[in-house]
């Protein structure tokens, strides 16, 4: 089941929320286990950037093992989609977009109790594995005829990727090669995994769990690379402030360091 299958449908995300609450749960524990010792489990609803899918899924499972009374329900999508859903009244407890500007906007609207930056990620170039790809290095993305897949211009991964191309002086050529504006960074990965695109730019953390035989990862040189900064915000719209505070504290604590490390994120 998994929330992942809903990612493409972010457009109707707000309407899917009831379903999410019924079937969701980031952790791998039995989701039917609504009652712990006869007492109803508290739920914490987390709206997280698509690029946090692996990290938050693992973190929720680790957290739930230690906190039997709480269940973490995650809604993963592109940051702008999440921001729209929150602005439209989604009862999210926590918000973790891939750029601090979404937290700043939510704070300006009075929606944020407090927030803290907790992780960083870097960009990499991905190409389909095997075959005779034309893209071998970062500079090759500007070669004529390359089908380049990026996240859309409003999505953090898309903005960072364009900034990185601009720093390398490649935006002119590569800009003409963009064949799709994907709604979130994981959809970019999908388009490369299926072989539809020749090259894509995603976070290093998106391919941490992907086998080398499925996708080829090429580093983007430091001088062009851009850091994505993840900020976690506690929202006023939440229904479970106490539970949200505990998951917030867990993500910032040393208890989550191992996960952050193993999935190639860096502590902020």
């Amino acid at each position, binding site marked *: 089941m998994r929330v992942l299958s809903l990612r*493409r449908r972010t457009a109707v995300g707000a309407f899917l929320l009831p379903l999410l609450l019924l079937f969701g749960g980031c952790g791998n524990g039995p989701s039917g286990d609504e009652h712990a010792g006869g007492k109803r489990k508290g739920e914490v609803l987390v709206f997280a950037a698509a690029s946090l899918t692996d990290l938050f899924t693992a973190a929720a499972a680790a957290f739930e093992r230690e906190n039997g009374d709480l269940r973490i329900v995650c809604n993963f999508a592109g940051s702008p989609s999440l921001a729209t859903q929150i602005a439209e009244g989604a009862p999210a407890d926590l918000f973790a977009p891939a750029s601090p500007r979404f937290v700043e906007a939510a704070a300006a609207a009075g929606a944020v109790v407090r927030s803290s930056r907790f992780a960083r990620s870097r960009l990499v170039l991905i190409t*389909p594995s095997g075959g005779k790809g034309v893209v071998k290095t970062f500079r090759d993305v500007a070669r004529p005829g390359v089908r380049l897949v990026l996240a859309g211009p409003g*999505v953090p991964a898309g903005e960072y990727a364009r900034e990185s191309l601009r720093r390398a002086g490649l935006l002119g050529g590569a800009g003409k090669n963009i*064949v799709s*504006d994907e709604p979130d960074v994981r959809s970019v990965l999908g388009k490369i995994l*299926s072989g539809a695109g020749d090259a894509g730019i995603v976070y290093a953390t998106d391919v941490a769990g992907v086998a080398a035989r499925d996708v080829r990862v090429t580093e983007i040189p430091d001088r062009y690379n851009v850091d994505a900064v993840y900020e976690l915000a506690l929202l006023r719209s939440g229904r479970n402030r106490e539970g949200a505070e505990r998951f917030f504290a867990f993500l910032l604590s040393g208890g989550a360091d191992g996960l952050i490390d193993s999935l190639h994120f860096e502590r902020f």
Partner: protein
Amino acid sequence: MGALFLALPVAGLIMRCDWRIAGAILGGTSVRSALRLSLLVSSLSVILSFLFGFPLAWYLARVRFRGKRLLRILVTLPMVFPPVVAGVALLAALGPRGIIGSSLGAAGIRFPFTTAGAVIAATFVSAPFLILSIESGLRSADVRLEQAAATLGANRWTVLRRIVLPAIRSSLLNGIALTWARALGEFGATITFAGNLEGRTRTLPLAVFQALQTDYTGAVVISVLLLAVALLLLALLGGRFFAS
């Protein structure tokens, strides 16, 4: 109760639509480009569905052969495909790593990320509506008229044009309306198979999806436009839907 449930979302859409800014949004280049692309893609889908679908419908309605039931199931299948699955299936068949897509790619033909890909996605999910409508029309048409015309010396083309098409006019128009509306609304297969780029594959439903990420009000306005275009098509072609 049933009517209320069905009407409520439409009412919500219309009531949440900000008419004051609607003009500015609809006049914007991105919406106009999506509208143009939607009309192009859905029209081409209907034409392709007819060209390839009519002979198939004829075969289903008039020819007796083994495996007819299987063929009809095959034709109906895309109607019940979840659109995203249709997109994945098209990638598996026509994508660069697909079963025939790799040979197509070697010949320089590539569908993902092209308008042609969007047309294929829309045609795949909508053609069955036209084929099944035409088939049912052909079944109820009087074969003796066609035979009589042929005996009187009319060639096959004349029979088709003067006898068959007028006889199935009503089911044909209904089929075209349904096919067109389905092609116009196609989202899942398109974004999965053809991607999402303004002017090339971003049709109106994808424009709604795109707007939803940054501009809810804009998304509502484009949704109302899409609904209006679909209603217009139904009214023009399938007016008898509304007759009691």
